[in-house]
């Protein structure tokens, strides 16, 4: 909004000072409601959740303070590994799912983008094909992958029918391997989107630089490795931020792929938070887990953003 307003303000004639002031003022006025809404409904409720995590809220919000009791509970659960507590499982799964999801989406997205950037024929058709999975909702993706991977009706059965009867792929019904299926479905859905981001970045690279590299005799690999990818650093920043938050807030995907958490093995912090807050009537524990999630994201993202943005500012 402000970037739109700025050039208009500079072109305005000096005598229209009232108009000029209005033009400065209107964007602020227009932004004010959304700013206030965000302030109340995002940051306000963040604080409210933070407050609830110190109370003994059960089915409904309560204001009776219990100090750090809820944090202590979660802290103890963090180290309960035999049998694994739901919170421990949630954390381990978050690391596995989040790590695989971010790394593979970046890798596949970048590879696809580089391949598509080779001025190939039919790019106009290929690009949307890779991008379309993102148009599906996660619950559809999850259900489709659950059916596709189901050993009784999906991939394994098809391969058996083709004659390879020793083939075995039962991850989706094996509680210990389920989380990898969630990652597969998530990567399938999102890597096309990451590809589009990288493709836009690649198109933004100045062709003069690439030509210069070619004249200097750099191989294609070296050009990408030493010149293009480093130039695209801001795209990596955006992609990592988007992927990380998608991984952390992922909820419907895990429920639909795993079928409501058999064996308690498909827990993620988001499913943990929802079930404790809304279905198990332990709102205080749910709020505590939400606060820990937020703090964890902040602990990862703030230093990263700080270092990236400071370097850009220099």
């Amino acid at each position, binding site marked *: 909004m402000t970037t739109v307003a700025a050039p208009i303000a500079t072109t305005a004639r000096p005598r229209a000072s009232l108009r000029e002031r209005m033009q400065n003022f209107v964007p602020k006025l227009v932004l004010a409601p959304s700013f206030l809404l965000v302030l109340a409904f995002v940051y306000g409720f963040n604080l409210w959740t933070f407050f609830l995590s110190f109370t003994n809220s059960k089915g409904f919000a309560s204001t009776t303070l219990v100090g750090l009791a809820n944090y202590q509970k979660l802290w103890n659960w963090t180290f309960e590994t035999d049998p694994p507590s739901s919170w421990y499982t949630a954390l381990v799964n978050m690391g596995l799912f989040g790590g695989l999801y971010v790394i593979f989406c970046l890798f596949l997205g970048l590879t696809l983008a580089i391949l598509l950037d080779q001025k190939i024929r039919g790019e106009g058709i290929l690009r949307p094909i890779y991008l379309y999975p993102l148009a599906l909702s996660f619950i559809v993706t999850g259900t489709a992958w659950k059916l596709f991977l189901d050993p009784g009706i999906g991939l394994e059965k098809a391969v058996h029918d083709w004659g390879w009867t020793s083939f075995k792929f039962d991850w989706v*019904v094996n509680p210990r391997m389920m989380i990898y299926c969630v990652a597969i479905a998530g990567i399938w859905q999102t890597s096309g989107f990451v590809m589009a981001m990288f493709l836009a970045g690649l198109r933004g690279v100045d062709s003069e630089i690439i030509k210069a590299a070619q004249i200097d005799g750099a191989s294609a690999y070296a050009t990408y490795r030493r010149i293009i990818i480093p130039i695209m650093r801001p795209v990596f920043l955006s992609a990592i931020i988007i992927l990380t938050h998608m991984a952390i807030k992922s909820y419907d995907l895990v429920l639909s792929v795993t079928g409501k958490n058999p064996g308690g093995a498909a827990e993620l912090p988001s499913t943990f938070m929802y079930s404790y807050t809304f279905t198990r009537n332990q709102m205080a524990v749910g709020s505590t887990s939400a606060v820990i999630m937020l703090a964890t994201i902040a602990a990862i993202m703030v230093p990263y953003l700080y270092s990236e943005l400071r370097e850009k500012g220099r």
Partner: protein
Amino acid sequence: MKLRTKLLAGAIGATVVGAMAVAYAADIKEVQMLHWWTSGGEAAALNVLKQDLAKEGYAWKDVPVAGGGGEGAMTALKAMVAAGNPPTASQILGYFAVDYAEAGKLGDITSLAQKEDWAKVIPTALQKFTTTNGKWDAVPVNIHSVNWVWINKAVMDKIGGTEPKTFDEFIALLDKAKAAGVIPLALGGQPWQEATMFDSVVMSTGGPDFYKKAFVDLDESALKSDTMKKAFDNLAKLRAYTDPNYAGRDWNLATAMVIKGDALVQVMGDWAKGEFKAANKEAGKDFLCYRFPGTDGSVIYNTDMFAMFNVPADRKAAQLALADATMSISFQSAFNVVKGSVPARMDVPDTAFDMCGKKGIADVKAANADGKFVGSMAQNYAQPPSVAGAYHDVVTKFFHGEIKSSDAAVAELDKALMAAK
């Protein structure tokens, strides 16, 4: 351009909000009802009630939320109540009703209840959820029970099986099916389904008194007892009779396996009968319903209720009309014939019901008289959601091998339930 769009959106938003406010204030001859009976058979069953109320001049306004288990609906309801704008009534399950009652959010329909003498016709144990300190604040629509097994009759005839009366006979029957090459036990490996089955296993292993002591009273000596350990061992035995792909399967898909004859039996509450009905199968001819072996005479129940919220005086008459219509004998019969459950009133004639319904009605009466009518732990009718959730965790972790032995399971059960209490 952007500015104009925003202003326009704002204006539209304001109009919508205004219109909604007007709609709320206007009609008092209206029942606002939050429920999740949106699928074919359920919606048809509820339509009976809508028509009964229309005859009395009350309009029906749905606050529907899709989704079978009602998790989304419970969240929506919580928001409505917290905002001070409760519906006239809401479909509600188990301890959630108690929560709202304890928070002082429910109304009072005691006068109607006394006039109609509901205390006599509704099973005693169930009244725990419909009354608070002697004050009526909810009406039960039906009684489901979870200790049923559903058997494909054609498969049963093929393997020459007979009704199993004990757990050991049940295992023998499952072995027969296995030998004949059918999947013996159709199971959906989701925590609530495994826990629901375990309710029956505990009842079968320890009997009604043990069940009550362990789950209703949360007696630690019962939770840690050898009987409970034996119940876990029995549950582990059943695991051997599932197909390898059971994890995460939805319950209705498991029922479909029995309907199609791929599997012999499913252990499930009587809502499974709705699936048989929908597939045009007839009780006694195409499928058989028995009590879970070793639990005959006992009923592990859950029930759908309408919680009556504390509404302003001008909406009170509509609420009482709703409560009255819900408890009418004709509605209780018509609704439950369609839904597959049994009436919450014990004085409803069983003529319209099929074989399973008739048995269900007789069982509820007998179990209520003998004190063998107990709430389902898995379905939130024995303990509040926090404890029931911990129960789900332990049972599913044991069933899927995360908890390795029945000794560990018993210790974990005791620990988890006590921590969640």
